């Protein structure tokens, strides 16, 4: 379970994230929507402890990520916007390496099965990652999350740049993870994907979580309208 309590990040006088309160429970997919610079990636980076909060608290399974960095990282799996793997190694070798770093050791057959389950084409499993598309790399990332048996998944615009088919496949994998009880926090620009896969949706602007709704309580047009209104509000505030 992910929890942010008055989580704030400031860079000098600039506030990247302002008193964020957020809770993502097991089996939840919380989608954070917002324009560039809204604070989505900052939120993810704070949970990853890549940056330290100025104020407030970020916890994973009740463990403060700043105090229990190693333990919390064992619990989570992270897929950035553009998952970069080692291009000279195969998908299987990359998966084996990253699983090993997380203390999980699998046989070659098990790793192949994980990659197959993540939707990677069989004939690419033993090919070098340099020949992979972005979607294929993201699938290796999902395989890694499954392999690590992560209870928390942090995704930073994972479907950005993916073609609709690959994006759809990725969403299906996320739903599988949801069914396994994984708590997912996903930053995205894709309203349609957020509505289709998310259980909760948050709309951020200028470091503030303006709206927080349950996905099934709002239709896609309503979500779009709410989002655009928020963005207009943002422009008004800015001007």
């Amino acid at each position: 379970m992910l929890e942010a309590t008055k989580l704030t990040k400031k860079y000098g006088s600039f506030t990247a994230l302002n008193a964020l309160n957020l809770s993502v429970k097991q089996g939840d997919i919380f989608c954070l929507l917002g324009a560039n610079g809204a604070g989505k990636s900052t939120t993810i980076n704070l949970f990853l402890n890549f940056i330290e909060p100025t104020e407030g608290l970020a916890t994973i399974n009740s463990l403060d990520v700043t105090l229990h960095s190693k333990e919390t990282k064992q619990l989570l799996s992270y897929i950035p916007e553009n998952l970069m793997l080692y291009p000279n190694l195969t998908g299987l070798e990359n998966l084996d390496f990253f699983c090993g770093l997380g203390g999980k050791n699998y046989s070659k057959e098990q790793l192949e099965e994980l990659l197959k389950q993540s939707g990677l084409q069989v004939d690419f499993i033993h090919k070098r990652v340099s020949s992979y598309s972005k979607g294929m790399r993201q699938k290796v990332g999902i395989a890694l999350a499954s392999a690590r048996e992560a209870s928390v998944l942090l995704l930073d615009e994972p479907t950005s740049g993916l073609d609709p088919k690959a994006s759809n496949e990725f969403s299906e994998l996320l739903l599988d993870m949801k069914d396994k009880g994984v708590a997912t926090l996903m930053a995205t620009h894709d309203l349609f994907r957020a509505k289709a896969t998310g259980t909760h949706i948050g709309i951020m602007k200028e470091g503030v979580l303006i709206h927080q709704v349950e996905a099934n309580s709002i239709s896609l047009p309503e979500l779009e309208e709410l989002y655009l209104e928020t963005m207009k509000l943002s422009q008004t505030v800015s001007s």
Partner: protein
Amino acid sequence: MIRRIAFKEMKENLYEGRFRVTIIIVSVLLIMATWLSLNYFKSVQQQHADAKANARNIWESQDEKNPHSAAHYGTYAFKPKYPLSLIDPGVDKFSGISIFLEAHKRNEAQYMAAADQTGLARFGDLTPDFIMLFIIPLLIILIGYNAFTREQELGTLKLLKGQGISSWKLALGKWVGIFLPVLILTTGLFVIAFILLVNVEDFGELNYGVLLLMFVVYVIYYAVFINITLMVSAVSKQSGISLVSLLVIWIVVCLAMPKASSNLADSIYPYPSRQAFAADIDKDKKAGLDGHNPWSQAAKDFERETLEKYGVDSLSQLPFNFDGYRMQKGEEHEAQVYFKHYAELKNTFRNQSKVYQAAAIASPFLPTRFLSMALARTDYRAHWDFSDAAESYRLSLVDTLNMNLAVNSTYGDWAYKADRSLWKNVPDFEYDPPSLGDIIGRNWSNILVLGLWFLVSFVGLKILTQRV
């Protein structure tokens, strides 16, 4: 975790053409250098053995003659070729291989191999020590310059850190990933050298402890270079900047510092010119007793002192041949003159060595270079050692011959001829090189500085990788 990162690093390197080509080139160069060295040393060793046997044969084949004439006839002391000179020939080519031993004169070593080469010899020879001291550090730079920068450029660093791995463990994994191929290469060279050495006939006694210590010295040298490479990679923003920075460091450490320290040492503590050195010796020799000049004031004084000491009125009443006795005393005076002037030379050498040792603080190359040569017994200290042993032998040889003349003949009896058995009874020149303990004792500061380089660079690596 460290093992896994190291294994991944090696696997990635193996897949890269840059690494494979570099390793192949360095391996081929090492094999070529070892093969060339082996052939050269086998040939020189044979020449030494032949020349030594020939010189002894010529010495023993002398006819009956005045022993002092035999002292002037002279013989040679040959510097032994040491097994590890196969790996590091040091200054052997420039220090000469034999010393002509004769009465009244301490000669310099002669027959320098470098003198037989053309001006192209200035480019240096392809020897194993050249590959190990200059090329393998370059190999380390080529393998490791982008160890951290590449992770940043690829974007894999975030994913790595997301797995909960600490920067220090990541650095250690990368360290091992670079160290292992270098270790395999170095071990391969030493194993090949060992196999070759034990199979070369009459190649001298190989001290396994020295071989092992030389191996350890090189391994520490490479560890220092790995630390430096990783530190630079950790603080660089781009791989290109890291590579250029490391190449500049290599140029300074391996090329500029040794030459600069040599120039500095020579300007602070200059050696006298050969002419000035010879003139000073000549002047001091003339100020004392000349065994061949019975009319000099020094000879007259010595004659008077001897007559008083033995309580006799004339030289013919002495119980020995005064001519032989005077020549021996003249020899002893000359020996003292040589001792004094060579001591000054050695003092200059020691002072210059201190400059090198101070410069070693700025370059791990220098202590490694000196330790390697010292362990191979091909440094200037080993040459001094041999030169002193040859001088000691010369004095003993001349003493034996002069005293034979003094004891077995009477004053004015220039017709005396020693039996041929005398030449055979004079022992051949035997030389025990400095022991491992002596070498360590003389090089403790180099060992200390190299050790400090390792420790300080390792601590530096730990501190700087925190920023990754």
